[in-house]
């Protein structure tokens, strides 16, 4: 039986980071708060 070459994907699949990595970044962003006092920045991470 003839092969259907047209079905073959020509472009490579998109390179994407793991979902866990994205989730970790977003959670880090939500947890982090920066308070500026004078010239100093204080970072706090809410757990």
């Amino acid at each position: 039986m003839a092969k259907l070459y047209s079905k073959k994907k020509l472009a490579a699949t998109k390179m994407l980071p793991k979902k866990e990595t994205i989730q970790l970044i977003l959670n880090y962003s939500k947890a982090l708060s920066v308070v500026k006092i004078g010239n100093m920045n204080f970072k706090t991470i809410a757990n």
Partner: protein
Amino acid sequence: MAKSQVPDSVLVQMYISGNEDALATLINRYQSRIFGFIYSKVNDRDIADDYFQETFIRVINTLKSKKYYDEKGKFLSWVLRIANNLIVDDFRKNKNIKMLRDTEEFSIFSIIKDATPSVESNLISTQIGYDLRKIIEELPLDQQEVLKMRFFQEMTFKEISEATNVSMNTSLGRMRYAINNMRKIIEKNQIYLTA
């Protein structure tokens, strides 16, 4: 759909003002290009994931500290520059350390050997040491003395003869008798002293 039309700079401002969804939109918009850029440099998905994470942690820290974000510059090129700097910094740090990964065809342990003796060789050498001590104890005292001084204290025959107050020839003779006697004891008792 409407959100994808929002310019990057507006999304960045929204994020700085506390809108967490804006960051998710930015990541969603550029994750493929940023990850692809990192992967093209490191050629390993897991390492690329690590750099992706580290890059965005820097982005978040910078934006939340309101330290620096040039609105005139594009968000994507700024993030790519951060990623590039991270990779270059790590490359400089590790350029003398060759990285090898364990695969099915190649085991890292084929080039790295554990130099510490195994439990078996430890047991064997303990047993040999024990047997040897027993054999030496069978020898006459004068021969024992010369043998211990020569092999365990690494004294020269001159030093041994001075210490035992006999001539050097006597010390040499005692040594010869000691070794011959040990051979006889080993043969008689069929002791194996090899590992």
